[in-house]
């Protein structure tokens, strides 16, 4: 009886073990899907789509809507095993619509070198280069926020109506001559292109005594030199706008995600301080 029990247990365990070879591991599958192969010196391939290298000088001052740092892809020219890619390979961050792979790491391979370079999907390459040379085709505005529910960053893209209201608010007739300082959470807004490029100048929406203000900052690169970043000049160059009262309700709705992030952060800080 005892022997039979042992045999039965062993058989069950072996059967379960054999069956498990049929089921994969999502973490490994994800890593395998994040391998970027090198086609030639200027082209890489990810998920069957080719991406071409963009000249660094064209990208000065331009940013990408990359928010998903948890799902990096890795340029892996030398067959580095997927478990070691995050240590040994250059990481790239796909933009939300996967038009760009933006590099934020350096990798010196056996024959190749990747150094903070960025790639653009082959079918969009010519148009993107044209925009970088002639000016971006900005289509709307967005801000990023952290969603505590799924633990990930998201982009909130303004609707047509919200874009209109925002554009109207930053018209010269709403210009506010006195700088506004608020202890409230500012929401950083960027103008974006359909491909996922962000304009180099940024906006901040701040709230003070129930009123909304928009601060328009010039491109940071204009104030960055060999001597360092000129904070004071940058702050002085900011232009202030007061949002017309009729848009307050729309702004409340539009900034709900940002406000929720701030409320959660603030309550976390309070809990931490109490602790």
């Amino acid at each position, binding site marked *: 009886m005892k022997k039979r029990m042992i045999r039965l247990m062993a058989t069950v365990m072996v059967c379960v073990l054999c069956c*498990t070879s049929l089921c994969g591991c999502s973490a490994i599958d994800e890593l395998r899907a994040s391998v970027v192969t090198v086609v030639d010196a200027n082209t890489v391939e990810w998920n069957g789509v080719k991406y071409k290298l963009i000249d660094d000088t064209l990208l000065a001052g331009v940013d990408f809507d990359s928010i998903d740092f948890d799902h990096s892809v890795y340029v892996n020219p030398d067959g*580095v*095993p997927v478990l070691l890619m995050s240590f040994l390979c250059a990481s790239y961050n796909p933009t939300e619509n996967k038009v760009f792979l933006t590099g934020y790491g350096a990798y010196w391979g056996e024959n190749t070198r990747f150094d903070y370079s960025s790639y653009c999907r082959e079918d969009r390459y010519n148009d993107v280069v044209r925009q970088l040379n002639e000016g971006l085709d900005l289509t709307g505005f967005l801000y990023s926020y952290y969603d505590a529910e799924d633990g990930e960053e998201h982009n909130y893209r303004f609707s047509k109506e919200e874009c209109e209201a925002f554009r109207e608010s930053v018209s010269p007739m709403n210009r506010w001559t006195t700088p506004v300082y608020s202890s409230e959470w500012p929401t950083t807004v960027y103008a974006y292109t359909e491909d996922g490029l962000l304009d180099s100048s940024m906006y901040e929406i701040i709230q003070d005594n129930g009123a909304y203000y928009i601060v328009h900052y010039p491109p940071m690169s204009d104030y960055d030199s060999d001597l360092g970043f000129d904070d004071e000049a940058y702050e002085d160059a900011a232009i202030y706008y007061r949002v017309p009262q009729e848009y307050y309700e729309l702004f409340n709705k539009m900034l709900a995600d940002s406000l929720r992030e701030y409320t959660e952060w603030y309550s976390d800080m309070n809990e931490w301080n109490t602790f």
Partner: protein
Amino acid sequence: MVKKLWKHELLSYVRLLVPVYVAVFGMAVLARGLQFFEAENVAYEIAFGSSITLSILSMLVSVLLTTIFVIVRFYRNLFSGEGYLTFTLPATPTQHLWVKLTCACVCQLTSLVVIVLAALVLGFGDVNTEVFKAIGYLFNKAYGTVGVHMYWFILEYVVLLLVSLVSTTLVYYTCISIGQTFKKNRVLATVGIYFAYTVIAQVISTILSIAFTVASEFLPFEEWMKAITKNPYPYIHGLVAVVLVISAVLSLMFFLLSRHILRNKLNLE
């Protein structure tokens, strides 16, 4: 007689450890089996996380239990009431000690093997494939840098692991042997002796490192460092050899001390 001693010693370990090993494998199979139901929901995440945690805990507990069994069996068999029966067997104290030591080492190595196998069960399939690929890649990279020294390093570290295992087990045995010479509170005395040994070992190593630091002021230390940096591998081999010799000498001392107590200072309950 030694063969029979070995056989019975191993059998008693098997009786104690097989249920532990079954539990370790069971937890690993359970954790791996759960991945059949992989889903992006909190229930699965909690179940999978708990099973992995339990699996790792069971592996750690198996190592701990093996060590406890090794210590308890040595004390009970030789120094408690069972000792009267043990020493009527036609075997010398040296043979008893030798059998206990070899069986204890075999069991501890078996526990390590079981943990490795359980880890393989945990990653059965894709994970193992990738883990082996990563190990192979790192080995090739290391071989590319270190060359043929790599094989020597592996051999040296395996030998060092075995010698350390023997040395650690003999430390336990020596402490128990000294502790049983006390008339009262023998277990407490054993624990006290073990802690005293640890403290003394720490003090000696601290004194040696201070002496080395002081001596380096008067010695051509920088020139030595330059020579070591130029061709470090022979020095690493030398260092491992020194550690091996020290461990072996200490093991021999502990073995002889335990044997001496078993022969001349036996104080059965």
